[in-house]
């Protein structure tokens, strides 16, 4: 009942749409940041002393990336959101942009670790074999390492997608209207907490189940195409 009155279901649906939009935007940003950081960090870890001439710059870059992941992974998402929303971008009215930025910056730290460990899980002999044939680091990375690493990276990225989707509920603290905020607003108006909160819990759950199912399908398809 309580979902039908005043077309409230439309509000919920719109909220859910926003949550999904935030998820996709943040993941896209997180992947961009994550790829850049993991490239810097693995290049740094795998470099052979003296071989590359940009090693000083690489060390600085590596230190910055390490600092970033340490800070992001060492502080609560909620606190990061509040700092972004109320301190850094206090005067911004584009809360959606701020939310995507905060979630994406957070996600980038985790995505970079996912990619890094995916790359590190590949036998170092693969890189050595490629290099011993005269191919450059980037070529071997692209042709040999990444195509193998992606099989470990994609499933973990799927989990990150789900985590991120659930984390979007936090952005209601900076006043952006997504699914959780819709429920809070309705509860504030009607003083009835049960239906709105149980309702959105169910909606989150359904979406997560659908995502899990789709990811499982993707994974199975990847394994099938994997003829090794």
């Amino acid at each position, binding site marked *: 009942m309580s979902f039908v009155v005043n077309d409230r279901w439309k509000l919920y649906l719109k909220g859910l749409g926003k949550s999904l939009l935030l998820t996709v935007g943040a993941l896209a940003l997180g992947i961009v940041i994550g790829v850049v950081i993991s490239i810097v960090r693995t290049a740094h870890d795998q470099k*052979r002393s003296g071989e590359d001439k940009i090693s000083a710059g690489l060390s600085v870059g590596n230190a910055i990336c390490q600092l970033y992941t340490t800070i992001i992974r060492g502080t609560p998402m909620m606190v990061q959101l509040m700092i972004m929303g109320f301190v850094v971008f206090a005067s911004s009215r584009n809360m959606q942009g701020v939310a995507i930025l905060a979630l994406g910056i957070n996600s980038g730290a985790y995505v970079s670790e996912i990619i890094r460990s995916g790359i590190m899980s590949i036998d170092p002999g693969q890189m050595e074999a490629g290099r011993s044939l*005269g191919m450059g680091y980037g070529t071997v990375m692209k042709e040999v390492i990444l195509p193998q690493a992606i099989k470990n990276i994609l499933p973990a990225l799927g989990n990150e997608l789900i985590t991120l989707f659930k984390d979007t509920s936090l952005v209601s603290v900076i006043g952006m209207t997504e699914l959780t905020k819709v429920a809070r607003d309705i509860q504030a108006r009607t003083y009835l907490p049960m239906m709105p909160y149980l309702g959105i819990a169910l909606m989150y759950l359904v979406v997560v189940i659908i995502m899990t199912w789709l990811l499982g399908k993707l994974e199975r398809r990847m394994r099938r195409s994997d003829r090794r």
Partner: protein
Amino acid sequence: MTEDNVLLRVEHLSKSFGSNLVLDDISEQIRTGEKVCIIGPSGSGKSTFLRCMNLLERPTKGDVFFDGQKITDLSVDVNKVREQMGMVFQHFNLFPNKTVRQNITLAPVRTGHMTQQEADAEADKLLARVNLSEKAEDYPSSLSGGQKQRIAIVRAMAMHPKMMLFDEPTSALDPEMVGEVLNVMKELASEGMTMAVVTHEMGFAREVADRVLFVDEGKIMEQGTPDELFGHPKNRRLQDFLSKVL
């Protein structure tokens, strides 16, 4: 043995990992067409020695010269050098995401030595040589160890290197597959390829090597023709070593 015959030369080569001195001031040279086998106990630095030759490991001290060029110079393009020095690993290190044919053609194409067409033709030729033509479109996971290692050798040969480095190419193989790999190596040797082979196959060393180096504690403790080294070992540790492996 004139100077310009020398294809690879190391001078006062030392390599440490942290405080662990693995190679201790080695000077040695390998002539064009020469087959050198490197033997020695486990952990003595054989692999590290070999890997310093194509700079998979950077020497801590000393220099490596290849084909007249001081390749330890930081200005040298290591990739260009490695194109001319094939390497075969104990664990094959084939690329599992590529077919056998792609394993062979990847480097020649990506380094700009051949077009895909030329590389494919080359791969066909090489696969026929090692009797694996029918495996061209298979993935490495479907091959036996001996087949994998023969592909790995052929993959290195596709770059037409001036020299080949082998690091215990048969150590990871079941005994019945050792022969097929050694046969390919013998054939390569008889065609005049310059080879440096770390091996525990004393029979192979005896038959193929022009010279055998006994490495222990990061030094070349003794060297000579297989007859000298196996027949009349002078060094105590070499005598001990031989009594265990022969």
